[in-house]
């Protein structure tokens, strides 16, 4: 099976690099990243802050374009074939990103309006999803009238209402209190499995990745794939945890070493020579 095998793969990154120009020079967010996510798989992308996780999510969603390499999502280039993936991708971000001038139900309706779903079923479908997520009776509340957990449920309902094939969650439960976050995680995981969706779940929590993921992709700085943990379900969690930690700590040690070699007299020149070759 190759990375671009569209029958089995839902998402493929091939040699993807992404750099951002800044005032202090280009910053590398991802470096030659290659991986694929299978259809119906719950994949967790795990890494520390600043390792390019959110950039990966934005690239999948087509919100950014790679500097080099290419990406396919459901057989299409997510940034260039913009309309082709309309309605096939859903997303939930760390903050709920609800439109403050819309009520809960109007926020959930948004993707359906964009998909030009007939008006007759718009509100019914949105209301059904709010009910499924335990928000019956709050349809006409504005986001600032809801608690953080409730707002995130509205965001989940909005992501699920168009019934997308692929869901991208970028630290979606990260800033909720532990009880709410745990409950939402369990509910969402069950829901995604019941509906056979491909899920890309970006997280910095090892526990969350171990709890939810079928596979875990461990990213290190700057946006390098350190390890892929296959078949997470059924394996010893403590062992996996220590395995992931050793990968992350190894990457951190390597990054420190690189920094110190840059800081040494002649270090920058040495690196410059290396690039020149």
């Amino acid at each position, binding site marked *: 099976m190759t990375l671009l095998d569209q029958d089995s793969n839902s998402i493929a990154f091939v040699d993807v690099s992404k750099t951002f120009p800044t005032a202090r020079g280009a910053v590398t967010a991802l470096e030659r990243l290659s991986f694929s996510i299978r259809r119906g798989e719950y994949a967790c992308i795990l890494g520390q802050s600043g390792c390019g996780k959110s950039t990966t999510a934005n690239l999948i969603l087509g919100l950014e374009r790679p500097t080099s390499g290419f990406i396919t999502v459901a057989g299409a280039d997510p940034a260039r074939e913009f309309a082709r993936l309309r309605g096939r991708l859903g997303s939930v971000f760390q903050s709920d990103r609800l439109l403050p001038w819309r009520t809960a139900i109007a926020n959930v309706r948004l993707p359906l309006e964009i998909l030009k779903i007939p008006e007759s079923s718009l509100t019914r479908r949105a209301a059904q999803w709010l009910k499924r997520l335990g928000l019956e009776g709050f349809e006409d509340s504005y986001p*600032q009238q*809801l608690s953080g957990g409730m707002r995130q449920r509205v965001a989940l309902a909005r992501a699920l209402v168009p019934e997308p094939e692929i869901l991208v969650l970028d630290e979606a439960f990260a800033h909720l209190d532990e009880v709410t976050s745990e409950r939402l995680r369990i509910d969402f995981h069950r829901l995604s499995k019941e509906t056979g969706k491909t899920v890309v779940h970006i997280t910095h929590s090892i526990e969350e990745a171990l709890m939810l993921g079928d596979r875990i992709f461990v990213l290190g700085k700057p946006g390098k794939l350190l390890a892929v943990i296959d078949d997470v379900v059924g394996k010893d969690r403590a062992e996996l945890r220590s395995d992931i930690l050793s990968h992350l700590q190894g990457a951190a040690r390597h990054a420190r070493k690189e920094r110190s070699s840059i800081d040494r007299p002649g270090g920058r020149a040495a690196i410059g020579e290396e690039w020149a070759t």
Partner: protein
Amino acid sequence: MSVGGPIATVTGRGSSTAIDSAVPARAGATINIEGIGVLLGLAVIWQIASHYFPPFLFPPLRTIAATLVSTLRDPASLSTIGFTFVRIVISLGMTFILGSALGIAAALHSRTARALEPLIQLKQGVPGVCWIIFSILWFKGMETRIGFIVAIGTLPSFYYQAHDAVRGISLDLWQMVRAWRPTRWQMLVKLILPALRPALLTAWRINLGGGTRMVIMAELLAGVSGIGYQLRAAEEQFRMDAAIAWTVILVAFVLISDAILKWVERRLPIGALATQLTT
């Protein structure tokens, strides 16, 4: 897609506490006793002055009130008022559409912004009265002159309000809506225009007074109809009572229009003002 039953529950209606606390309190209307006192004091001084000065300087309040009533009862005067108000509304409306459209375009396309910037700055540097003279020299028709003067005077405000409001939309919201892959038109009607509402209402409130002044000035200097023209006629006939009656009508128009805009603003969804989140 089918899923079994409600997959989660919330903590019941107890969250209504959060709801109540999140709703911004709206200040109730209060009577400005001090302001009313000052106005009454001015009226008393005016009335006293009317006993010592000729009527073309300080006509008695009773005369002013009688002129105001007769003006409001006279069909010809009402059509004069109508002319001026329609001019103000149409000129401002057209400038609003043009200025907002240019502001949105400039916020979305840096090349458009760069192209428009010198023009806006040039306009800002030229005094308003110069534009009135230019309009008299350039245009023959009264309505064209007025439209031009109002457009020149108020366009930058609509432009900058729209431009800054679009630039102020949170990046999070841009990305969220874009992730659903809307068309450009959908992006405009689902995100940009709703996010602009508070800023554009503010621009209307700012420009209403300014636009009214410009229309009156244009009618005064170059008009053959409208309230400005009537003010000039009152000045030529030394009719201070008529000048004040027309001025009162103008002030009432501005205050009523502002009250309507405030009412519209209050009717906006409570979250509309929270659009400009941090990026």
